[in-house]
């Protein structure tokens, strides 16, 4: 496995630079607590999806999860309809919230497991499988909701998750960071993490070494689905209503974040902390451009430029060239 402290280093530098530039052009407003909270509140929904993509990529063999946002929307829509049919969000606020979260997470888990089963048991290429399930999930959400937005309302607990602060930090951001920490620990300290990375590095060797390949794959995609469910909960909590076509642009952004974070598209390597930092970098940049009043097309351009820079850094070890005492050879 290669070491990519360089990637993390780059991401930290970029984040710091973005914050500094933001402070300069906005005369400080950019660093006001309210904007930092606003940005931290915006990024979890896409962050969860990016971690899901990272997990799928790590599994190797062309692993990717394109169904993330579709599954997140399905979780929200299905949960709002199912729970809404026997509980009212205004009468039983806590019960509604808990049931909503549970059903949404369960939907995500089932959807993800379904992906995993198709990929591991039927040997369908992940990109085709998740493209198919993406349409399937979207389709189910459309049929369930009749194509209309479904009202979730703002019961106390959900509204706290969407808008609340804990010690000045948005609760949704705290949930995101804790979930990311859990996944990081899962990858670092459990056999599952080791199996996943080794399997991604060399699938053939993994087969001969007798890894439980199918189970690892199912667990990987199930986790990705669970994260999509979590994204669905956050989306519902923040927006009061859920709709099947929310966040269609997230699909590519999630992949962009994973690649920016140095996750190897061929599998076998990826760090959660880098994905979190890359998510933050993208959020900082997009808010910065909105602060500067620049066109959103500039944002797409800037993201593309950033992505290419990162690919170049990963390929040519630019950080190593700049810091001689750290010029370890990257594989």
């Amino acid at each position: 496995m290669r070491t990519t402290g360089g990637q993390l280093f780059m991401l930290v530098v970029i984040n710091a630079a973005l914050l500094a530039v933001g402070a300069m052009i906005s005369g400080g407003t950019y660093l006001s607590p309210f904007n930092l909270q606003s940005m931290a509140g915006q990024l979890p929904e896409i962050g969860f999806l990016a971690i899901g993509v990272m997990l799928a990529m790590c599994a190797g063999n062309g692993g990717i999860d394109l169904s993330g946002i579709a599954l997140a929307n399905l979780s929200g829509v299905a949960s709002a309809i199912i729970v809404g049919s026997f509980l009212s969000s205004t009468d039983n606020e806590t019960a509604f919230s808990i049931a909503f979260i549970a059903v949404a997470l369960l939907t995500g888990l089932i959807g993800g497991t379904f992906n995993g089963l198709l990929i591991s048991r039927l040997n369908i290429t992940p990109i085709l499988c998740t493209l198919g399930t993406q349409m399937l999930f979207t389709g189910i959400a459309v049929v369930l909701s009749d194509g209309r937005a479904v009202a979730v309302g703002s019961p106390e607990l959900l509204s706290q998750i969407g808008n609340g602060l804990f010690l000045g930090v948005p609760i949704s951001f705290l949930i995101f960071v804790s979930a990311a920490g859990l996944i990081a620990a899962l990858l670092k300290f459990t056999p599952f993490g080791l199996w996943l990375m080794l399997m991604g590095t060399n699938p053939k060797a993994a087969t001969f070494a007798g890894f439980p390949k199918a189970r690892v794959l199912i667990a990987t995609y199930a986790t990705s689905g669970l994260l999509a469910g979590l994204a669905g909960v956050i989306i519902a909590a923040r927006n009061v209503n859920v709709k099947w076509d929310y966040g269609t642009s997230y699909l590519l952004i999630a992949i962009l974040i994973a690649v920016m974070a140095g996750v190897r598209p061929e599998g076998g390597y990826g760090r959660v902390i880098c994905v979190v930092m890359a998510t933050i970098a993208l959020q900082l940049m997009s808010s910065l451009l909105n602060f500067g009043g620049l066109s959103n097309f500039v944002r797409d351009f800037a993201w593309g430029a950033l992505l290419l820079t990162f690919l170049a850094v990963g390929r040519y070890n630019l950080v190593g060239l700049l810091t001689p005492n750290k010029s370890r050879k990257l594989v």
Partner: protein
Amino acid sequence: MGALSKKMLLGSAMALAVVAGSAGALMAQDKPVIATVVKISGIPWFDRMETGVTQFQKDNPDVVATQYGPATADAAQQLQIVNDLVAKGVNGLAVVPMDPSVLEGTLKRAMDRGVIVVTHEADNQKNTHADVEAFDNADYGRALNERLAECMGGKGKWTTFVGSVGSRTHMQWVGAGEENAKKHPDMVLVDKNNESFDDANGTYEKAKEILRKHPDIKGFQTSAGNDVLGVGRAIDEAGLSGKVCLVGTGLPNPSADLLESGAITAIGFWDPQKAGMAMNSVAKSLIAGKKIEDGADLGVPGYEKVKVVKGPGEGVLIIGNGMVIADKANYKEYLF
């Protein structure tokens, strides 16, 4: 994490703290800032709206008015822009929601922060101080139909097209049209409410079918933006330009050829430029603490005597008379 990146992490954290400390004071903003957020940037409709926002800025140097919009048609992207603008500290938001229901949470947070929210094309928006609509839907449907009846000489078979029967505004337009046609007992409505799904090609096929089924048809009233193009092409190809009347919602630029050839009798629309100015004007008044009363003059053509009714939420619904029915003679005044 290597020792170096740890050092860097610490270093940048410290640098950050310094920057944050030095830039603590908020920049004092003396003029109220009004941000217009549209569904998507770079399409003719909202480019035209931007000319209105620019014009408003020119006429009102005591405010700062600019337009923003996402690069992709996605409610999530529009929502992020609104979030960032609220964080930036704008005083007023003039939003054309991609999806009113999805924006409720965000607009509520904005209103809780004391931002004045004005919306457009969202008469079902709950979390807004005022929603500005260009015209009353029934008036518009009636006006389209009256123009059609005038062309048809008040007699003959006619039919209607809607985007889909689920589209509330389209159904209101053709409904009002049907009501209006009752004034002309010789007008016979046949095969009403054809669904076009705003697809010019599909509409073209359907219009050809109708022309075959009713060779003596005299009029079409259409609703979705591309319907006039599809039906117009069918009329044009059948050599019926000028003999069959076609009145419907459409935009001047794309319709120009068919208006010239006479296949389209007249198009109806509202001018996004004026709507943009009207939204900003309402936002400015509300920021100044004024109320918009029934019959008020927003100082924008078509919004000189607005109707004000209670909206679905706390806010009001402001209805102008900004409809434009343009034909061959005057469409060139509105090229967009």
